């Protein structure tokens, strides 16, 4: 059934982007934009693959990925928070750093294999018709990913720590006046974001491609950054956006697999076009205001 296959494919191919987008969202909510998300994903992908390869188990790989991603994001945090350098330049540099570092260190992992994170059925739920194959026949990271948007929403809008994070993103000075260290909050947010992006990268290689190659993410990290902006910094919309992207990717491949008579070149553009279109529609109506400190990065305070 096309719909069921596409939706199952949506979850499969959207999850890595979902992790990266939610991570970037946390970072931006604290007032730091991190264009290095792509580099963090790659770092997580390689660290996850290498450790899973060495230990014979995917779980330590995921943990190593989170640590490696947090460290790389920490470089960005140091440059922009402590040294107050331009966020966009530093983020791009961190992306190149991640790409270069992983291409270099990853050369010997191209022909290696791992014990993959395989789909785990959930008793009861997985046998529900339609819903089971779509939502409950995945690896554990995907289940975590499905819960991530709501969890981050709860954190941001229903906890004190989330309030402090958002306040820091609106104005570091005000947060400081209330006795909170914007430096600490931002370091934590940026590094958490990097860790989540890295877990996304690890999910891509450990559960999905089962392989490491140079630049294995092919731009998914940049898609994640764009999603955050189009999602208006809302975690649930970011989840939606990631799945629209994954869905369009799955749909175009499913259509080709069924021999539908449409140019594959057009179909290959579909994920990007559809994601843009849906998020533009979704963001109409209510004003989509970025955190003030992010607005300052772009120098559009008057907007």
């Amino acid at each position, binding site marked *: 059934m096309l719909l069921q296959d596409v939706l199952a494919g949506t979850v499969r191919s959207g999850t890595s982007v979902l992790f990266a987008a939610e991570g970037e969202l946390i970072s931006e909510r604290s007032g730091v934009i991190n264009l290095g998300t792509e580099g963090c994903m790659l770092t997580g992908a390689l660290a996850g693959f290498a450790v899973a390869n060495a230990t014979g188990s995917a779980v330590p790989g995921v943990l190593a990925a989170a640590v490696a991603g947090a460290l790389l994001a920490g470089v960005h945090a140091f440059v922009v928070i402590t040294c107050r350098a331009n966020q966009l330049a530093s983020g791009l540099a*961190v992306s190149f750093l991640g790409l270069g570092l992983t291409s270099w260190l990853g050369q010997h992992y191209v022909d290696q294999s791992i014990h993959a994170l395989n789909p785990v059925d959930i008793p009861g739920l997985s046998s529900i018709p339609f819903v089971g194959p779509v939502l409950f026949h995945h690896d554990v990271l995907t289940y975590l990913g499905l819960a991530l948007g709501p969890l981050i929403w709860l954190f941001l809008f229903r906890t004190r720590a989330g309030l402090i994070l958002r306040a820091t993103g609106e104005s570091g000075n005000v947060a400081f006046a209330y006795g909170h260290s914007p430096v600490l909050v931002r370091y934590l947010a940026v590094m958490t974001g990097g860790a989540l992006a890295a877990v996304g990268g690890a999910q891509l290689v450990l559960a999905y491609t089962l392989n490491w190659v140079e630049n294995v993410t*092919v731009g998914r990290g940049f898609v994640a950054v764009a999603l955050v902006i189009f999602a208006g910094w809302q975690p649930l919309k970011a989840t939606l956006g990631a799945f629209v992207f994954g869905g369009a990717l799955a749909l175009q*491949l499913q259509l080709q697999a069924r021999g539908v008579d449409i140019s594959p070149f057009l179909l290959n553009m579909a994920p990007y076009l559809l994601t843009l279109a849906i998020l533009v529609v979704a963001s109409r109506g209510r004003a989509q205001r970025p955190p003030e400190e992010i607005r300052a990065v772009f120098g559009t305070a008057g907007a």
Partner: protein
Amino acid sequence: MRRLGSAASTRAAGWLLVGVCLAAGLVVAGCGGSDSGSNSKGKQLTIGFLYVGPHNDFGYNQAAYQGSLAVKKAFPNAKILEAENVPETAEAERVMEKMIRDGATIIFPTSFGHLGPAMNVAKRHPDVTFLHMGGLQNAPNLGTYFGTIYDTQYAVGQAAGMATKSGKLGYVVAFPIAQTLLNINAFELGARSVNPNAKTYVVFTGSWCDPGKQAEATNSLIDQKIDVMEQHQDCTKTVVQTAERRGVDSTGYHADASTLAPKGWLTGSEWNWGPLMVKMVKTVVEGKFKGSPYSGLYRSGVPSGVIKLAPFGAAATPSIRTEVDKTFAKLKSGWVPFEGPIKDQSGKVVVPAGKTPDRHALESTNYLVQGVVGKIPGGA
């Protein structure tokens, strides 16, 4: 560029430098790497190899790398320079210039897109011989060669056609170009020769290596009850392993991937560049390159041993092995598996009965044959 991988390292180090320089807010000046090593302009034979990807990719580049190992073995005193992950840009020119400075007199640019840069460098260095893989153009000191791998794709298609229970075969392909279309056609013709109902479902990913898309394409095809997977792109592991994970058979292309699919591997087409590369180097060293077949557009296949079949895997039943071996013997005697009548997807006859197109006609294939499900842009 003394050992394999150092070009990749140089490039990676380049990215690192870009990153570090930017982050530190420094002006990038003189960030070029310094090279140790002597210039051996003496009598020692020096040969350079360029690969577009990593040498251990279970694919195209690994096959070319295996060729370089054979050259090394045949010329134990020669110095072999190797560079992997060389992009098809001006970067390739720089790598070749560097190899020439290090004494190389024979250069093997092994990717289709290395041809342009190689033509430029060849013009500047008439005393260096360039042996390019897969091109359609040559120069006085540049020859190009390729293997007719579609020949064995017919036999591989037969294995797939006999193994399938659903009659549906899957093919994940990077781009619709003549080379890939030719392989898909040969595969489907082979499958149909043993299983008249076999259909090949094609998915184009639009990238030579995007494992994420490959995984989803494979899953999509398997969702459609496809039970044998074939592919044509640079990195090949993901499709084979995804098929194996979902309990589906796979055939291969470029290199033997049987270790990746202990249950589902059938067979595959494989390059065997070593003997040809050794012969070409010998010809150049003896000063006989000009006028030799290698100075033009050289094509070779099963009879010369450039193309072979990968070992059979666990999924290949005795009857599959017999049939494939029979076809391979025919190919070895020079048979070309495109005997008319062949119809394209729309039912138009593209090869009339009793005819077989020549190699050059085949290399400009722009159609998919009847029985292939999938669309080429601008095609039938």
